[in-house]
Each structure stands twice: as C-alpha cells, then as structure tokens.
C-alpha cells in the first residue's frame, strides 16, 4: 500500500470515529464527534483580528485555493493508482462566528464505505469566535496527522497573511 493510500485510509478512519462505521454528516456532528476520535485533534489559538475579518480572508482564499479537483497518480512495478478528489470548502460568517468547512469528495480511486455527505467527507472544520475587540479564538477540528500545508495556510489566512495556497496533492 503506498503513502497516499495509507493517508487516505487514516483520514477516513479518523473521521469515521475509530472506524466504528459512522461518518459525520454535518459540520456540527464533526465538531461533536472529532474530539473522541482516533487521531482527532482540536487546536485552539488566538488571533488579533475580528472574526469578520478572518471570515473575509476565508471567503477570499478558500474558493481560490480549496475549491479544486486533485488528481494524484502512484505507480510502482506492481500497481498503478489514480485518485481523483474534489475538495469543497464552505465559508459562513455570522454575528457569532466565522466558519470554514472543508469536505473531500472522492470521485475515483477510493472506495466510499460509509455514507457520504452531499459535498464529501468532512476533513476539517475551523471556527473563529470573537473574544474581544479585534480578537478571536480560532478552533481547528482536524486530524493530528497529515494536511500540514493546509493547516499552515489556514493559520496564515486567519492571521491576515498572504501565504498563498496549500498544495493539496501533498495531504
């Protein structure tokens, strides 16, 4: 099994809450179920920006960087594997918080064992909650493994930095 397959299986198992057979179907379910999941991680950090400013950064960068279709090809002497994944970001900004939901819809090369939500399995949910004037607490619900570039990019966007886009072929 190659690296991509292992990471894909790991991600699915994390989201499947210990491979017990259930996948979160909404962002709320993801928030509730991830903390108890194998390799689930809830990371919190403060940013000196309002949640609406963070939401604007998400609205600017997420469609550009995360609304993409990624094709990866792995080849050895014995195997040839093509995985096609459509990434689907959703940004919501309200008076209470700014949210970024990231979903992955596997279109080719991955067997979808569990029920797939409309835009794909939830990979990450990020909330920016106001905690003062021009200050927010950002909460990332994510896997503790993989997605390093994605995490780095989102932290940069939350901080208002122009860090560009993550290479989603490297998740």
């Amino acid at each position, binding site marked *: 099994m*190659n690296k991509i397959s292992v990471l894909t299986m790991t991600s699915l198992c994390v989201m499947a809450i210990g491979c017990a057979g259930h996948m979160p179907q909404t962002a709320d379910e993801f928030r509730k179920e991830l903390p108890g999941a194998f390799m689930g991680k809830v990371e919190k950090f403060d940013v000196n920006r309002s949640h609406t400013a963070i939401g604007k950064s998400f609205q600017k960068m997420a469609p550009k960087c995360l609304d993409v279709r990624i094709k990866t090809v792995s080849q050895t002497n014995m195997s040839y594997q093509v995985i096609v994944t459509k990434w689907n970001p959703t940004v919501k900004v309200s008076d209470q918080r700014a949210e970024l939901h990231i979903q992955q819809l596997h279109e080719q090369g991955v067997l979808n064992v569990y029920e797939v939500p409309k835009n794909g399995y939830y990979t990450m949910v990020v909330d920016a909650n106001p905690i003062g004037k021009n200050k927010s607490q950002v909460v990332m619900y994510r896997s503790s493994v993989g997605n390093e570039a994605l995490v780095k990019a989102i932290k940069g966007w939350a901080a208002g930095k122009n860090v*560009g*886009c993550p*290479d989603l072929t*490297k998740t």
Partner: protein
Amino acid sequence: MRNHLITLILAAGFIPGCSGLKTYSSDLDNNLRISSETESGSMFSSVNAELDIHRIKPDCSTEYAGTVELDGPPVDVGIPTGRSSYLVFVFESSGFLSSTSGSTSYDTLLRPRRGYQYDIKVSYKENLYNVVINEIAPGGKKRRELESKELAACRPISPAAKK
C-alpha cells in the same frame, strides 16, 4: 527486428509533437516579468513550475497559446494589451522513489494595460504555492497588487459591441 526499429523511429519522431505543449512566443513587447522560486522541501522529490498562456476569445472560450518554463532566472514575455489573457501557473511535483506525481495550479485572467508592466512573483515552498501580480504604471512610480480573477468573470463580447 526491422518492424521494431520502424516502430521506435516513429515513436521517437512523434513524442515531441505529442506532448501537446509548445513554447510560448510572441512578437509583442514584453510586458510580463516572471520570477519564480521553487523548493520541494525534500531531497526525494522535485517541483517544476510553468505558465500556460491562453488567449480569450470574444465568447470567453480559451485558446492555448503556449507554455513558459519557470524553473530558472526571471523570464520576460509579451501578451496582448487591452484584452484578457488567461494565465495558468502549474506546479508539478514528483517523487524520485515513490513514483508519485501530482500537479496543482493557480489561474487568473489578466488584462494588461498599454504601457504598463506586470511583475509576477511565483513561489512554491513548504508545500505552499503563491502567485503575486503587481501592476506597474509607466515610469515605474506607482504599483498595485492585482487580485486574481476567475475565468468565470469573463463576459462575452456581443457582435454588436465589436462594431
């Protein structure tokens, strides 16, 4: 053996023409300067950057014009002014041992103004890629960063408007 030889010769002759890529060239004055910096972050993998330039037709469909290799010193190219071109920056990564490859891209419409220069910085570092386009006014005194513009933002030009 003779048949194999003919097959090989035919294949060798077709390969350069079959890739579908052609080097971009134009007689226009250079108005884009593209600098690139790529680091794969691993000795077992590499990243190549290139720019695919597409012309935009009046109905907003695209026509591939050519590719500019970006792995090297800054490159100067000329694209038409007063009309949009569609620029697609492609980052291709491949592993030496894993035989895994992938590509990701950043695209934008750009409508250069006559007399203006466009300074484009392309980077790929630590699995993050970025493209920053600055428009420089004639004389070089004023510059502003341009937002990327999706192809979907293109509006077809009606035949009546062209007259």
